[in-house]
C-alpha cells in the first residue's frame, strides 16, 4: 500500500465521522429548538455545554455540533501527521507540524 492510500485510509474516516456526528448534533439542536420554541440564538460558552446537554438545551447541541465541525479539518492534519510519523517521512512530519503551528498562531491572534 502506498503512502497516499494509507493517508486516505486514515483521513477519510476522520472527515466522515466528524461530519456525521456534527450534522446529527445540529439536527437534534434544530429540532429541539423548533419543538420547544426556546429563546436565544447565541452559542454557549465551552464550559456550559455538558450541563446544557443534560438539560436538553438546543443551543448546547448546536454549539457542540458547530465546534465539532470546526475541529474536523484540524483533526485530519493530526491524522496525516500520525501516518507520516509511522512512515518515517521526515519531510512531511515537518510540513504537518508547520501547518499546526500556523493554525495555533492564528488561534492565539484571534482570541487575544
Amino acid at each position: 500500500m502506498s503512502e497516499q492510500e494509507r493517508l486516505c485510509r486514515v483521513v477519510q474516516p476522520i472527515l466522515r465521522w466528524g461530519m456525521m456526528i456534527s450534522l446529527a448534533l445540529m439536527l437534534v439542536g434544530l429540532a429541539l429548538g423548533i419543538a420547544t420554541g426556546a429563546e436565544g440564538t447565541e452559542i454557549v460558552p465551552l464550559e456550559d455545554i455538558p450541563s446544557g446537554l443534560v438539560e436538553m438545551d438546543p443551543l448546547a447541541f448546536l454549539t457542540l455540533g458547530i465546534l465539532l465541525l470546526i475541529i474536523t479539518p484540524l483533526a485530519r492534519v493530526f491524522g496525516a501527521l500520525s501516518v507520516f510519523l509511522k512512515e518515517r517521512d521526515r519531510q512531511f512530519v515537518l510540513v504537518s507540524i508547520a501547518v499546526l503551528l500556523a493554525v495555533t498562531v492564528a488561534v492565539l491572534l484571534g482570541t487575544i
Partner: protein
Amino acid sequence: MEPLVLLLIALLCISAGLVGALMGIGGGLIIIPLLTLGFGIPMQEAIGASLIGVIATSTGAATRYVKQGLTNVRLALFLEMSTTIGSIVGALIAVYTDQTVLFLLFSMLLVYSAVMMVRHREIIFSPEDAACNDSLDLSCSYVDPKEDIKVSYGVKGLRKGLAYSGVAGMLSGLLGVGGGLVKVPVMNVCMNVPLKAATATSNFMIGVTALTGAVIFYGHGLLDAYLCAAVALGTFTGAYIGTRAVAHYSTAQLRKWFAVLLFIVAFTMVMKAFGLWGGA
C-alpha cells in the same frame, strides 16, 4: 429566526455547497450575498455563518474525494503551510486597507484567472518528468470517475505554488472568501495538477483556511447557532450532490463553468467596490 426562514436558507445554501464541491471553492461567495442581500442578515453574522458553511462544504466534499483518491493529501498539506500564514497576514492587512481598493484588485485578479482558464489547455506530465526537478516528490495518481482511466501526474513549480497559495490565503483572510478561486488555477496552470485533482485538493485545503477564521468568530461570540446549523446542513447536502455530479462532467465543461463563475464574481466585486450592490 422563524423555522420556515431557516428551512429556506438551508434549501438555498444547497446551491452554494453544489457549486463549491464542483469548483473546489468554499461557496462563501454565494452564501454571503444570499444572507445579507436576500435575508437582511448583518454582515458579521453572515461571514461567521458562511465560514461554518465553507467548512461543511469542504468536509462534505473531501469525504468523497479522498475516498476516490482525487485529493492529493501531501500537496494539500504542503500548500497549507503558506495559505494559513497568508490568511493571518491578510486578516491583519484588511484592518488597515480601503475596501474599495481591495475589491477592485480582487476583481482584476478574477478576470485574469478566468482568461487563463479559458485559454489554457490541460497538460498532464508524467511523474518522471516532474519528480527530478524538485527535492520533494508530490506526484500522485487517481482513476478518473468519468473516463475510468488511471491518470498519473507529477507536480512541478513548488516554490511558485507555495508563493501563490500564500497570496490565496492572504486574499482569503483579506476578503473573507475560501481562496479556491486562486488555488485551483494555480495548481492547474503552474503546478500541472489535473483540474479534477486540483479541485478536490483545493476543497480539502479550504477546511483549514476557514477554520482559522471560524475560531476567531467563535471566540468573539459572533456565531448565530441556528443560522450556522441551517447553512451547514444546506451546504453539506449540496456538496454531497455535487461530488456525485462531478462524475458526469468532463474537465472541459468544468473549466468553462469555472470561467463563467469567475466573470460573474468579478462583476459583483466591481459593483460592490462602487457601492452599487449591497455596500462594500
